[in-house]
């Protein structure tokens, strides 16, 4: 029997300290702010206002507008990322195929670079005045004049989704590839013996095995999409006509443009709860997968 030692406590202390300072205090501070009036342009009014900030946020037009934009972006982005990731994973899972090594080497690149930079790159590609996409389309005769992709709500959303897929897709692909690689090869041999083609093998072996991982990827990507901020900041600034002003961006503008900390904090808490709900679902899925 060893006497209780200080060693484990000493080793976890630095990590615990940093994490605690930046978790407990922010949480309390956010809650405090959200139930007080706190507008930086009216520094003398700091009354306790109860849930008024929350009521103002939820009762406001821009909140529902940004929720709608968030939902539209999240649905498009998650579907696109998952399909793209699945496609890439299936391609990477074919060892003998020419070109699969090339793909393996480059696939992580977009994931590794800052999302600010991926926003800058795609914003320049889609640029309505000098973008290379317009240039290519014009040179090949697909369009007769340049299209202002980023100035129309629908195409602006689409541009953001493409940039998002390019950046986030690799991660989804890596997750799905890991799941593909643990499918026993005998199963494929068995269905092939039964005369099944590639499509049926995919449907009856791959899909059932992938279900759990697909669910995880869907939830994880939903969390990532809802929390998107950098891309909006660099690519669209929330426009045109608030089409890309998703909720993280809306909270940012409430705080740093309109300087309403109380309402910003209330909004941030709502966003936090929304994400927390998604995380709970994620963890439940993770646990049920472990149990299976």
């Amino acid at each position, binding site marked *: 029997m060893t006497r209780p030692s200080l060693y484990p406590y000493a080793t976890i202390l630095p990590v615990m300290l940093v994490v605690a300072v930046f978790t407990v205090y922010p949480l309390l501070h956010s809650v405090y702010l959200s139930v007080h009036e706190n507008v930086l342009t009216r520094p003398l009014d700091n009354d306790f206002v109860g849930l008024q900030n929350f009521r103002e946020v939820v009762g406001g037009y821009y909140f529902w507008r940004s929720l709608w934009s968030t939902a539209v972006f999240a649905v498009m982005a998650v579907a696109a990322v998952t399909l793209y990731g699945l496609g890439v994973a299936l391609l990477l899972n074919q060892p003998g*195929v020419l070109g699969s090594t090339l793909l393996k080497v480059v696939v992580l690149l977009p994931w590794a670079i800052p999302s600010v930079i991926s926003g800058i790159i795609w914003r320049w590609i889609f640029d309505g005045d000098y973008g290379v996409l317009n240039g290519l389309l014009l040179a090949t005769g697909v369009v007769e004049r340049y299209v202002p992709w980023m100035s129309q709500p629908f195409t602006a959303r689409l541009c953001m989704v493409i940039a998002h897929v390019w950046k986030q897709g690799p991660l989804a692909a890596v997750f799905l590839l890991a799941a593909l690689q643990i499918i026993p090869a005998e199963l494929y041999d068995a269905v092939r013996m039964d005369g099944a083609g590639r499509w049926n093998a995919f449907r009856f072996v791959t899909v059932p095995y992938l279900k759990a991982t697909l669910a*995880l990827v869907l939830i994880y990507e939903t969390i990532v999409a809802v929390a998107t901020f950098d891309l909006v900041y660099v690519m669209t600034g929330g426009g045109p006509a608030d089409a890309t002003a998703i909720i993280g961006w809306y909270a940012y503008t409430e705080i740093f443009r309109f300087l309403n900390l109380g309402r910003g904090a209330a909004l941030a808490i709502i966003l936090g709860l929304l994400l927390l709900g998604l995380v709970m679902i994620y963890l439940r899925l993770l646990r049920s997968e472990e149990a299976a």
Partner: protein
Amino acid sequence: MKRRRLESAALSAGCVVVALFILAPFAWMLVCSVAGEAELTRRPPVFAPSPTLANYAFIFTGQMPQDKTRHGIFVWQTSHEVRMLMPALRNSFIVALSVMAANVVFGALAAYSFARVAFSGRRSAYVFILTSRLLPAVAVAIPFYAIVQRLELLDTYRALILVYLAFTFPFTVYFLSVYFRYLPAEVEEAALLDGCTRFSTLLRVVVPSAAPGLMAAAAFAFMTAYNEFLFALLLTQTIAAQTMPVLLAAVATNPAVSHALLAACVILAIIPPALLAVVLRRYLTSGLIASVAR
């Protein structure tokens, strides 16, 4: 047989298409970075401009090119912030390397205790560290600002390092403790029986055999810090501490920006993470998989 070959040709084509989708944006940035502004502001742009290093030369030396026809000359004035790229990259490196070092040292120490040492409160401390990650960044922006302001650390490296440590520690601890748990315990037990302390066992036995995991953890921490934008934007104000993403976002959202200069900045800024992604791709891939699946 013929069908087989057709299939594998289709799959190869798929790989090439995806690889093109991934690489084409980088390639176009590379082309833009050696072009003149005038070539990029034509409709359509010159797809294969005659290459020049003038953009890079301007970023490094501030020297403007003689050839005014290829370079719309006034953009050199309106994009003058690109001269700050090197200081901003320096800031990014100082912050990211510090975060990386602290993650490897303190993260490994804590993770090893969580993985192998029994002590009371272990489970709750572990859960606390992990759940702290559930707070979304935007939700804690104001309080983080308040903390940093109270510590009088606004516009310093230390502020960013502290905040990034709070973001990266949970993942590092989780990742490394899972990793350590998968190492064979017998060697460590033998070392302990031989009179090694926990600490020297960690240093002499665990660290050497966990080198790939430590490398992946280091790379993740580096990338997170190097790529972070929101808090760098909020907590820094001058080039004394401003990191690369903040500078580039400011340059890029300027409507009168020179796209050729911006492209050169982008190419310079992505070299470090791109190198990491290609060189360490095996460790990173297995690390990523471990982070969701286990």
